[in-house]
């Protein structure tokens, strides 16, 4: 069993390898049977106002469909918001599909109603950042920017 120690990412400065002119593309996805999309639309607007391009895939998508879309759209990040409680199996399947399709370079950012005791399972499944629901809007923006700054150009 992997020992995943969680860390809190407090960095706000971009590394020297950031390419500020490369537009960040994000796929905002709702997985499974969660039918609430208002939160996803709010996040989409926040990201757009931060200069990012957001592809929204709509409701009731499976992890396989989300990965198919994410690869074609050349997104840097898949942002998933889940309120339905089925986050552990869905994120595990998402991580598996990404690996299977050789799309492990795409970051996964999770948000929504996720209890802290499930964070380790999510991070083990390949989730790169979990944004708590109570966080300020700009946290999701800085989280995404930092992930991409650390990745460098692909």
């Amino acid at each position, binding site marked *: 069993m992997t020992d995943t120690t969680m860390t809190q990412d407090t960095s706000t400065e971009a590394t020297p390898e950031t390419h500020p002119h490369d537009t960040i593309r994000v796929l905002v996805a709702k997985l499974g049977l969660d039918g609430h999309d208002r939160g996803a639309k709010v996040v989409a607007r926040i990201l757009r106002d931060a200069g990012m*391009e957001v592809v929204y895939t709509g409701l009731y998508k499976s992890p396989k469909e989300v990965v198919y879309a994410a690869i074609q759209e050349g997104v840097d990040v898949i942002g998933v918001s889940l309120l339905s409680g089925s986050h552990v199996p869905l994120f595990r399947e998402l991580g598996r599909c990404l690996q299977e399709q050789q799309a492990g370079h795409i970051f996964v950012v999770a948000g929504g109603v996720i209890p802290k005791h499930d964070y380790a399972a999510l991070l083990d499944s390949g989730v790169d950042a979990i944004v708590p629901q109570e966080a300020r809007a700009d946290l999701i923006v800085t989280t995404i920017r930092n992930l991409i700054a650390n990745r*460098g150009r692909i």
Partner: protein
Amino acid sequence: MTAFTPSRPVKRGTYVPSLELMPNVLNGSILAIARMISRAEAGYVEASQALAEIYKHAGKAHIVGITGVPGAGKSTLVASLIKAFAAGGCKVGVIAVDPSSPFSGGAILGDRVRMSDAAETCQAFVRSMATRGHLGGLSRSTLQAVDILDAAGYSPIIIETVGVGQDEVEVVTAAHTIVVLSAPGLGDDIQAIKAGILEIADIHAVSKADKPEASAAVSAIKGMLGLGSAVTRSSWSPPVLPVSSVSGERIADLKEAIVGHRAHLRASGELADRQRSICKTRILSTARHLFQQRFDEKAGELERHIQAVVDREVDPTVAACALLGWEDKVPVK
């Protein structure tokens, strides 16, 4: 409040040189195609040689432009067309263009929502692109994305454009076949006259044919075509087709009209003219873009010219010539 991240090493990307990616693009690798489109969009200098090579492998696809006012139902129609063409064995490519925010430069690209199921079941390649400040709706990189899909064997390649007024005209210069979609019940006979829509269409479609107002819209457009100008681009008579993505009505007819138009272009020799016109526009529009980039880099020099014009020392024309380095060539026309 901070985000929670794993303690494993942060993912680092490896940059695969574009010339190495290129054979995978030609073989149809989805990952490679998507990556090359991203590089073309970002304008990576490193990718220019590969893109030049890819251009040489393009030229087989039928490029279809679909345009029309917002809310007419373009994305839903494209989803139906994906299914119709895929049923005939085609590998369909779609570029869906949406506007970038003039304030933030970002964009919400929502066309894919309506095409998502069709894309996955029919193995179509759908890419959403933002205009990124390109006022005409289509940019250098949109057309490079078309080249990439073309070289990878996709045909038809459907370009769904921002349907905002005069901007539709730009799609003429990028596609072989233009479909203009009108929505019924929105005062179409007025809208049909505006913005040169009538002149650019090779095929007219009226959406939501399942609604009663659709036949009025069809009649209005046929009426306007009857009164049409004597200057026509082509010996082809644009059909006016009511279509319904809900009932599937007439989608097959639309597909046949699109295929028929391509056959007409070949048979009449007009295909070569369209190709020529597409190439001319691409050269000029890329040249304009490169000029614009150079001006963006000359910001300091521009500031001095602005001040001189504000102070009425020189007029804007003289300042523009000076910026271009044409001091001796102030135009007289």
